[in-house]
């Protein structure tokens, strides 16, 4: 017999976030159970790029509910008991009909195909899978949107409290005969009369797409824009454009290929499939779904850029592990790019996990949109942006939380932010290789190791960290001193050696020595084409031409041949990325 597969899935145990899909007016007469189910159903379609508003005749809908809208039934009975049957509530009655969930979903998602509701206690979901398969085999529809939903029952919750594991939850699956990595087998489904929708809920958590279609588009846009912004003066025009083909149309072949190569690595795409800007989103989405991983690159500040693979499980562990920091957040205001670990986690995956709406702005310090900040907002940003805000003495409205990472947040900056009204400032200490590692909320305070990490201590230092439920293990990128149980302070950066003609050299050592020269105000050193290169800011009044000769003479006396930077570039200030990190030149 043919097999059926899960194309996408989503889950909900509340309705926070439903408003991002539907106008309040359209939801006003819908009961809580139907809203929760609607939310999970909407996400299931939206996350793989299906238009919610467009009429859909090729998607069948099956709802499996162990108990149905029982709260509404009780409300109707309450109205009879309290006011007599002559004054019973017709609205409660209409909502107490078992298929009311199905109706709300068909209306709001514009589903016009076959529809069905099954109510069979703990067996509801398994039973519904049989008919879903039958529909697909009979070609009644191309896909079946199969959902499970149950709510808190005032009587059962009280009488069987010890048997109820989750009081309300909903889960939806878009099923197909086309093979995916998740087969759905009715016989494998566990029956639980007291928690009829819990098994599908857990299954949806496991099988939901790693990166949604919308998020894929966002990551791609950010990747392309970041690449273009490095070369353009007017970066606002780059960030204002959402059209990838348009953004790339004036690039030469090599530039395009560089971007395609980067995207190929980022999404682990097989066989150089990225070559067409028109289908790039679909290719990347399918690849991320197939491989369940994303491959970030380090900035290259410590040598060649390194690939850092983050699997779906690792990201899930991280997102669920940081969720406790954002309990009272209502909305995310994002200013960071999502093709790096920080933005991917905190501006895409964490809001998705917590059902938070996200408003994104270009990573360019402008004051205009900051006026829209309001109580309950989380501003996801980076130190340079915050420095700009404090420079203009920007006062935060009450109840705004700031999340800062990508570079160290100086204590003075954190103090200024609190002084200017920030409710909380959360600094994330992390690395592309590991994701978020620790956090702190007060200037001068040590970092608290996030709960999903274990650590090994040696000589009072954090030697290595390892994830609790996935296999990720890393040495800290910096020297970190243990300051107490799960507390650490970052002492200094460990710069990795790079190889020049097969010899290990340390750019940080060269940089530190160059900075000590009286003609040099600031300097940065990194690996260029097979040799080190240096960018130097000279002290005021020093002549560039003379300085170059003097510095080379100086370097020859103290550095090995391999350590001497081949190229020296001079400028008024060090090249920085939009986030304030050292940039390439």
């Amino acid at each position: 017999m043919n097999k059926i597969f899960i194309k996408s899935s989503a889950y909900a145990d509340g309705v926070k976030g439903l408003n991002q899909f539907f106008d309040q007016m359209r939801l006003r007469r819908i009961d809580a159970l139907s809203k929760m189910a609607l939310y999970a159903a909407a996400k299931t379609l939206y996350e793989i790029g299906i238009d919610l508003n467009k009429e859909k005749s090729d998607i069948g809908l099956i709802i499996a509910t162990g108990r149905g809208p029982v709260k509404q039934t009780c409300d109707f009975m309450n109205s009879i008991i309290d006011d007599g049957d002559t004054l019973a509530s017709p609205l409660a009655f209409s909502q107490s009909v078992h298929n009311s969930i199905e109706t709300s979903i068909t209306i709001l998602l514009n589903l016009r195909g076959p529809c069905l509701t099954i109510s069979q206690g703990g067996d509801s979901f398994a039973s519904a899978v049989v008919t879903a398969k039958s529909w697909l085999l009979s070609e009644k529809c191309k896909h079946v949107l199969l959902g499970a939903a149950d709510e808190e029952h005032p009587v059962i919750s009280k009488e069987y409290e010890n048997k109820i594991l989750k009081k309300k939850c909903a889960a939806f699956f878009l099923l197909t005969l086309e093979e995916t990595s998740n087969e759905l087998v009715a016989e494998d489904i566990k029956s639980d009369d007291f928690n009829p929708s819990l098994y599908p809920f857990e299954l949806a958590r496991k099988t939901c797409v790693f990166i949604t279609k919308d998020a894929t588009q966002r990551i791609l846009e950010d990747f392309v824009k970041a690449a273009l912004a490095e070369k353009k003066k007017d970066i606002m025009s780059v960030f204002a454009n959402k059209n990838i083909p348009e953004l790339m149309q004036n690039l030469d072949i090599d530039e395009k290929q560089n971007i395609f190569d980067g995207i190929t690595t980022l999404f682990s795409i097989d066989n150089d499939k990225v070559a067409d800007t028109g289908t790039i989103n679909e290719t990347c989405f399918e690849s991320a779904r197939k491989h369940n991983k994303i491959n970030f690159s380090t900035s290259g500040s410590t040598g060649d850029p390194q690939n850092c693979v983050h699997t779906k499980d690792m990201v899930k562990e991280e997102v669920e592990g940081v969720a406790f920091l954002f309990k009272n957040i209502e909305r995310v205001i994002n200013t960071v790019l999502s093709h790096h670990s920080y933005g991917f986690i905190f501006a895409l995956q964490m809001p998705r996990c917590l059902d938070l709406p996200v408003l994104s702005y270009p990573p360019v310090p402008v004051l205009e949109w900051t006026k829209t900040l309001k109580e309950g907002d989380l501003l996801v940003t980076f130190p340079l942006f915050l420095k700009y805000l404090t420079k203009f003495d920007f006062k935060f409205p009450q109840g705004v939380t700031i999340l800062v990472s990508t570079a160290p947040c100086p204590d003075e900056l954190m103090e200024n932010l609190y002084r200017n009204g920030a409710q909380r400032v959360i600094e994330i200490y992390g690395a592309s290789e590991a994701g978020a590692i620790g956090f702190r909320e007060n200037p001068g305070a040590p970092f608290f190791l996030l709960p999903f990490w274990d650590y090994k201590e040696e000589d009072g230092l954090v030697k290595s960290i390892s994830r609790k439920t996935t296999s990720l293990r890393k040495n800290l990128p910096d020297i970190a001193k243990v300051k107490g149980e799960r507390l650490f302070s970052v002492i200094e950066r460990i710069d990795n050696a790079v190889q020049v003609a097969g010899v290990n050299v340390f750019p940080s050592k060269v940089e530190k020595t160059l900075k000590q020269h009286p003609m040099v105000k600031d300097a940065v050193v990194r690996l260029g084409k097979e040799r080190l290169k240096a960018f130097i800011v000279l002290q005021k009044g020093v002549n560039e031409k003379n300085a170059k000769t003097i510095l080379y003479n100086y370097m020859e006396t103290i550095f090995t041949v391999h350590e001497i930077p081949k190229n020296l570039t001079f400028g008024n200030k060090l090249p920085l990325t939009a986030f304030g990190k050292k940039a390439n030149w």
Partner: protein
Amino acid sequence: MKTTITGFGCVCSLGNNVSEIKQNLFKPVSEISFLDRFESSFAKDYPVFQVSRKILSQKNESESYGFLFLKTALNEALKNANLKAKDLKDAKVGVVIGTSVDASFNCFDFYKEWRNEEYPPLDPLNKYIQYSPAKEVLKHLELEGISQTVVTACASGTDAIGIGAQWIENSICDVVIAGGADELNLIPFTGFIKLMIASKERCKPFDENRNGINLGEGAGVFIMESEQFAVERNAKKIGLVLGYGNACDAYHQTSPEPNGRGIKKALENALNQSGLKPGDISFINAHATGTLDNDSAESLALNAILKGVPVTATKSKTGHALGAAGAIEACLTLICLNEQKIPAVENFKTADENLELVPVSKNTEIKNAKAAVSNSLGFGGCNAALVLGSREKTANE
């Protein structure tokens, strides 16, 4: 689709079994019945169609009336199919039952006591958590198999039969027991009255002066078998499920889409699956509740897809048995197919000019009836239609 029906059973206000129903289906309903099984301020004002006291008196304390009706129809259907539970021990068995009341938390007396902190015994609650009519049928027959309780409101019974037929078609099962069962209950009785769609008079489907439904109760069950299973045991074929269509309105919680779009689509799907043309359909047993909106939307759809095909409306004789309605009506449609006649729509006196549909107002012979449609609409815009085929004629006929 060509799923074989080898047995059927039915109980409703027209009779306790198919034989009694066959006798009464073509006679006018003489009695108007009023509820006395539970207390209601409306009981004396709103007529209902009740199953006979003979059947009602057979109820065990532990079972619902709905399951009593289901059991009654099931036992008759198995007998009619000449099938015993032991014959099914090695077969892939499926049970699909449509209902409304029997899947809901409608234990009003228990809930009232519980809410008043009178600490009632939790039996009704335990039953509600662990019971479903489809599972209960398997238990009753001591069989293993796949079960499904369908709750698409008033389309449940039709959907159950359609789903069951597809399970056979897709080789998921060798034998499927499918149908619907529902009982008169305080919750829907009060609810329909409060929604102002219940009538104080006898319901008048498609009549210009129609003003609502009369509730009914009962059960209908089909035994359907795969061709191979039926042939191997030399089963008599008493009818066929030729097509099943189902489509939603996506319009309103309680009202049908006025233009009948979802109903049309369900009818089209059923016809397409049957491979028949509108001209092959001998008659329609319409959903025809007797409400203004329902009959209006349904007539638009019937005129669009099956214009000119004779229409009967058996709810005028059985009342609206909610989750059982579709199954009871499928049984009545099969009786009509095999009897080659359809019953008069009772209480139809004045044609509604807006409907452009005049149902049969007297018992009407349908010669060479080979296929008919049984149509259902449910709350929330659930539309379902079955195309049923007549039994194979024997050599002597």
